[in-house]
């Protein structure tokens, strides 16, 4: 069964991260790279990406003429996706365990961040029962 593990942050989250000491950033990234490598070795890796700064995020809607209308205005409370992993695991508990591992990634001074990770199952039923599954 496939799960997506989503890491969120506030709009200014990347500025906060960027202001960490270089050593802490490197330790954090090394942890993430090792986490990804372990997932590949266990055969549970499907995909994973980090997203660019939320300040570049745009909201797009179709106008009446079908052309895109872009807008960069978000409510202050909005949480942005910072990155995600898609994993193929044997049980929901395994997805939770992997999310906990990612949650414990080191922050400033090497202390575990214990950040919130949202865990959602990816739909795998026939497309006609799903809202947008094509694969």
């Amino acid at each position, binding site marked *: 069964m496939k799960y997506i*593990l989503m890491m969120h942050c506030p709009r200014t989250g990347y500025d906060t991260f960027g202001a960490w000491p270089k050593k802490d950033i490197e330790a954090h990234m090394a942890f993430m790279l090792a986490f990804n490598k372990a997932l590949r070795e266990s055969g549970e890796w499907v995909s994973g*990406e980090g997203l660019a700064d939320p300040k570049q995020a745009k909201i*797009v809607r179709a106008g009446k003429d079908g052309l895109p209308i872009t807008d960069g205005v978000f409510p202050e*409370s909005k949480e942005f996706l910072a990155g995600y992993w898609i994993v193929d695991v044997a049980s929901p508990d395994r997805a939770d365990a992997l999310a*906990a591992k990612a949650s414990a990634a080191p922050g400033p001074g090497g202390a575990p961040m214990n950040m919130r990770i949202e865990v*959602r199952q990816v739909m795998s039923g026939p497309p006609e029962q799903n809202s*947008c599954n094509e694969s």
Partner: protein
Amino acid sequence: MKYILLMSGTKAGVEGYHAWSQKDIQTHMAVLRGITKQLTESGEFVATQGLAEPAEAMVVRGEKNGMPVTDGIFPESKEFLLGYWIVDVATPERAYAIAGRISAAPGPGGVPTNMPMEVRRFAAYDQSKSQ
């Protein structure tokens, strides 16, 4: 450059979708499949997925002993990811144009939903390290 087009909605919005007529849902899906087919033909398609019900969503944190602590409680206003498309396009404008087409997918009675799509570029750093 790779972009992710994120379709989000609230729990109430998902319940509203389930109340659409069968015909409206089929028309909606046919348009989305058509967009994916065209993106495949143009070589811009990377991936798409739909997510399971927000009711199944969990928030997980690692405890001090590394064990997962799960919690399914979200504020009413929380927006959940419903699905996404990843596209590989030449310009940001092209990503916005594709998001606009998805936004215009038909809703009840064939009227465009005009749902908001969040458009985000992939960070080059993580991409080069993780692939």
